[in-house]
């Protein structure tokens, strides 16, 4: 078999987190009863006109600046014409001829090392509605709530060569957009969707192979599988001496295979032309500078700062800044308790464990940093021991409780009464004569066992250090 190279470019659609839609005042909130977030404008009623939401331009500029793009100082909206029931005007307002941003890049780190992936362009557009097929009534109903929700489409250059690079690109892109607060990037709600353009060619070939497009992938895992599957399919075709057809394919993640949807010949002619209802947008130097001045700290800068200012190991800083929510909790908890290493430990060990156990993403963390900071203080002051603290943290993680109150109410404070502890130890020693003899014979390992027995008898509410000290004292 010849040796092949896979060439991948992505089109990522990202719903912007503006309060109102791109061309009307309706809310962009996800969910809601069907057709309750609509007005005559976003439902395309006759005589209505679009009015651009400036915030959309701000957000597109934020993204473009963060991705090192050139800003199109005079950009326009175009109409993309096609018939479909989820598109009430029968055209989508988008940007073809003069998109707002061009020529940017994202630097990724994949198994292949550091690499720049080019951004061809970013353009602004409106989302369409949703069709819901009612199997029971055998009819299709339309929900226009999503109609007019603002999107940016980020089109990469065909610079990626593997599923690994694609995932690294997407993860980086997602983080940048989240840090910019321009999108929540919730793939399960469709606020981040990717189309994959993929072709294969013999290694060393200068020309691209024929590409296929896979639409609307909405999980990283599905994307990785779809890429593996599609490159295998194309290589097999070439190996059999067949040709790859230029077409749009649909990846069925359940069946682990893709299906042809429509070929190039069936491709629609969208008859793009400038939307006469929307004047061109002039973007001044001052406007760009204002956005630049307001750009927040992004992941790479944040990571470097954690390492430098807090002495957090690079790996840990990477994990914590790998989620905007986690980084947020880290920073405010450190602000409150001034113990960056402790906060980092709680996030790296217990939080990661609980996320895994509960099958959650870091973005779904919902406890407050105050409660974590209080917990750390409780341990630090010796009010509770680490074992108890872990138990309390589990409750903070799920129910965001106030640990001070919780410890108080559940009587979890460490017993510092040395008299009571001595009595318990005496009892433990009496019940475990064998271990006592072992220790006296030099088998110090058994000390641990006796500490454990004492802690058990104390129902965990003792300082293990203190138990250890008293035990040693009483044994000698």
């Amino acid at each position, binding site marked *: 078999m010849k040796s092949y190279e896979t060439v991948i470019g992505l089109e990522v659609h990202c719903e912007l987190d503006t309060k109102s839609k791109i061309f009307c005042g309706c809310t962009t909130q996800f969910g809601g009863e069907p057709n309750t977030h609509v007005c*005559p404008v976003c*439902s*395309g*009623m*006759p*005589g*209505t*006109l*679009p*009015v*651009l939401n400036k915030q959309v331009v701000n957000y597109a500029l934020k993204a473009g600046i963060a991705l090192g793009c050139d800003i199109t100082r005079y950009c326009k909206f175009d*109409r993309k*014409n096609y*018939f479909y*029931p989820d598109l*009430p*005007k*029968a*055209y989508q307002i988008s940007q073809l001829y003069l998109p707002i941003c061009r020529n940017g890049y994202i630097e990724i780190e994949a198994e292949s090392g550091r690499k720049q992936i080019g951004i061809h362009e970013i353009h602004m557009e409106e989302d369409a509605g949703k069709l819901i097929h009612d199997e029971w009534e055998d009819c299709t109903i*339309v929900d226009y709530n999503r109609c007019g929700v603002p999107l940016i489409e980020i089109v990469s250059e065909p610079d990626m060569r593997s599923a690994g690079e694609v995932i690294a690109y997407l993860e980086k892109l997602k983080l940048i957009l989240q840090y910019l607060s321009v999108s929540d990037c919730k793939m399960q709600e469709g606020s981040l969707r990717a189309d994959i353009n993929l072709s294969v060619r013999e290694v060393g070939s200068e020309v691209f192979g024929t590409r296929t497009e896979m639409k609307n992938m909405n999980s990283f895992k599905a994307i990785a599988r779809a890429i593996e599957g599609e490159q295998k399919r194309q290589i097999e075709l070439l190996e059999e001496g067949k040709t790859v057809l230029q077409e749009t394919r649909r990846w069925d993640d359940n069946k682990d295979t893709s299906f042809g949807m429509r070929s190039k010949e069936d491709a629609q*002619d969208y*008859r*793009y*032309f400038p939307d*006469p*209802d*929307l*004047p061109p947008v002039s973007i001044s130097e001052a406007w760009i500078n204002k956005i630049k001045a307001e750009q927040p700290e992004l992941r790479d800068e944040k990571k470097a700062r954690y390492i430098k200012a807090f002495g957090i190991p690079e790996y840990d800083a990477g994990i914590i800044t790998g989620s905007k929510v986690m980084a947020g909790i880290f920073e405010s908890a450190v602000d409150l308790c001034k113990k960056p290493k402790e906060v980092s430990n709680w996030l790296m060990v217990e939080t990661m464990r609980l996320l895994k156990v509960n099958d959650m993403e870091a973005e779904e963390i919902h406890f407050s940093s105050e409660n974590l900071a209080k917990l750390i203080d409780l341990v630090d002051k010796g009010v509770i021991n680490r074992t108890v603290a872990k138990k309390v943290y589990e409750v903070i993680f799920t129910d965001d409780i106030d640990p001070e109150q919780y410890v108080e109410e559940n009587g979890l404070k460490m017993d510092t009464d040395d008299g009571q502890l001595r009595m318990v130890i005496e009892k433990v020693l009496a019940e475990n004569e064998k271990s006592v003899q072992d220790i006296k014979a030099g088998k110090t390992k058994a000390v641990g066992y006796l500490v454990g027995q004492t802690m058990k008898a104390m129902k965990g509410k003792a300082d293990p250090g203190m138990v250890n000290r008293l035990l040693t004292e009483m044994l000698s």
Partner: protein
Amino acid sequence: MELTRLSALELGREIKKGQVTVTQAVKEQLSVIKARDAKYQCFITVKTDKALEQAEVVQKKIELGEYKNSPIAGVPVAIKDNICVKEMTTTCASKMLDNFEPGYHATVIGKLKEAGAIIIGKTNMDEFAMGSTTETSHFGETKNPWNIERVPGGSSGGSAAAVAAEEVPIALGSDTGGSIRQPSAFCGVTGIKPTYGTVSRSGLIAYASSLDQIGPIGRTVSDCASLLEIIAGHDIKDSTSVPELAKNYTEGLVDDVKGMRIGIPRDYIGEGLGTEIKEAVIQAGKVLEDKGAIVEFFNLDMVDYAIPAYYVIASAEASSNLSRYDGIKYGYRAKESTNLQEVYKKTRNEGFGQEVKRRMMIGAFVLSSGYYDAYYIKALQVKALIKKAFDNAFKKYDFILGPTAPTTALKLGNNLNDPLKMYLGDIYTVSVNLAGLPAISLPYGIDSKGLPIGIQMIGDVFKEKTIIRGAYALEQTRPYVRPVL
């Protein structure tokens, strides 16, 4: 006093003085409509109950001292049926929308209501404003009040005919390529197409968005200027509306053209123009010269390219604007479709008339890949050159004088069979829309067939006041001639 013969301003004054109540005025107007409209078919919808209800309300408010600054409080107004009026069917004279009732007012309707005008009904038009005769209406053609065997012009034929037939003193039309001015000329009334961006398009059902403008039609220049002053102004709902506008149109109502420089394009009085209309234009020039204006002939370039450029641009935009009528959400839906494609095909095939389909086909063609540059982009370049030709003319002249249309009102019946010939009738009007300029058409004489002749004055952008001044001065030299009704 025959109330329905009064101009809008005269009627408004009588109402303010308490000489007549709004209800009386509206009742009388409704009875004229009832008596005449079977003959002329100007209206698609007349809302008798609603009009009388409004009349009562406005009368009370007038008595309470409201509408102090409105000269048309209590005056009935007719609205072209492509302008949305809440809870009134707004059909665009199409089967596609014959049951469509918008849940919102167009911005101009809100402004009329604030001024205390009474919305009396919706007027007939060419389907989706595509046509120059009002014969493409799904509801049948409107007849010209001067001669019922003639067309009223179009596409605002119903509005112009209603004003001429005294079924209403003033009306709103819309003008994309001459649709206010040409029917005004054919019906012997006055109409203004404002500078693009002067009047909000919000609630105007789009034909060609970059060219459409709403404007007034009346029997006097003063009525039109006053109505324009009421409906003009920036609207946040229309991004193409102009932010700061000097609404000083009625200041142009002075009988004084001394020192004004007026250009008559040679290209506008050459081949293809009816002799009697040419004479009327030259006569008007002489009259204005006698009043102290400086009148010259000049060459306005690009005139021959205006019609092809217009039909490419307007059709392209129309093909996109009219795609939303797909039978899914509102309006007409064909029965017995078995799948989505069939719903679209049958609905659109049955719901649209021939002329609309023709323009949508032209539009889809010129926008399709491979043809876009050759047609659409080329047409935009021509549009820019036309604007430049006008810009050059306005360096020398305050306004341009010419005919509104090459003929007077055409015979009913044969016009739709030869669309190219029909399109040529737009030669003097379309370039004004392409350049976004204001223009006024006013009656100036009657031809040997007994039909009114219209002449046109074209101004530079936002120079409505200038053309109103020219038109007012000319209007003062002859009495208004009404058709025999």
